[in-house]
């Protein structure tokens, strides 16, 4: 197993997962890069981890949570100093009708746990055991979350397609 092909295979999956969780490209890229960097460092110092996919997604998840908490704390200060992120919010993007915007807006309507589980499996392409390991839950709990998330997402997307026809 070589490092660079592994990174090439993991990078797009990781970016999809981070982007789905945050909805912001810059934050997603930062977290993905930090996770990949952690994998490179680990690989060079101690050899490849048992499961590179689970390793890199676990690191990315931790970094994302930390960054999101920091953002929440700093947001009021940034608003005061007019340094707030002026990127359009997912709801506004939803109205533009692009695939990316529609997906993001639908994902936002899922609960945090369900969204994370679905993103790991669908966007991150992790298998059940890996995703359960990343989330620190059992496989049956993961299956339940993913199933629930898919059902809800499916309904949301169907509604989205049905509304313009009704209008």
């Amino acid at each position, binding site marked *: 197993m070589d490092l*660079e092909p592994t*990174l*090439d295979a993991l*990078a*797009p999956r990781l*970016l*999809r997962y981070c*982007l*789905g969780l945050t909805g912001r490209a810059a934050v997603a*890229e930062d977290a*993905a*890069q930090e996770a*990949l*960097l952690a*994998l*490179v*460092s680990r690989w*060079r110092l101690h050899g490849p981890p048992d499961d590179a996919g689970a390793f890199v997604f676990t690191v990315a998840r931790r970094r994302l949570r930390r960054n999101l908490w920091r953002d929440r704390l700093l947001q009021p200060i940034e608003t005061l100093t007019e340094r707030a992120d002026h990127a359009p919010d997912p709801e506004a993007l939803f109205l533009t009708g692009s*695939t*990316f915007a*529609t*997906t*993001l807006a639908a*994902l936002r309507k899922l609960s945090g746990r369900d969204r994370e589980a*679905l*993103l790991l*499996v*669908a*966007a991150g*392409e992790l298998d059940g055991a890996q995703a359960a390991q990343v989330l620190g839950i059992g496989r049956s709990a993961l299956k339940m979350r993913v199933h629930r998330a*898919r059902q809800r*997402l*499916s309904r949301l*997307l169907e509604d989205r397609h049905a509304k313009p026809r009704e209008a």
Partner: protein
Amino acid sequence: MPSRAKPEHPNAGEHDAAIDQLLREGLEPDPARSRALVEAALASATERRQRPASAAIGDRRRWSAPRTVATAAAVTFAVLAALVWPRHASRQPTPAAGTPTVVAAAGGHTPQAGHESEKSIVSISNLDGPLTVTTRGGGRWIVLNGEGDTP
């Protein structure tokens, strides 16, 4: 009684795969961005590896469990010592210069200024005049201030 479970989609597997595919397509990153991330990660790791040892010290000093435990133990010890030592010290008799320190005598003896007994005191009488201190058993006199008689 009819089951309350919702009917399963006729092609549940295909349906799930379609949802996943839709999600992947919706979030698909630009391949150039993915490649750039990989290159950036490799370059950062190489750069970090080639940094001088002095720069790496900062990284190592970030957090260390043994050092944290040792520091916590030292601080705890210092705080406890600061709290306990004054109490312990205040219990020790400190002779003031030029004044009789402790007066105690072997049973029935009249104590003199500057005499000290190693025996435990049973009673003290004649507080106005020369003190009469009764101790348990016999006692050894120690002259502290250079006054009085040694028995």
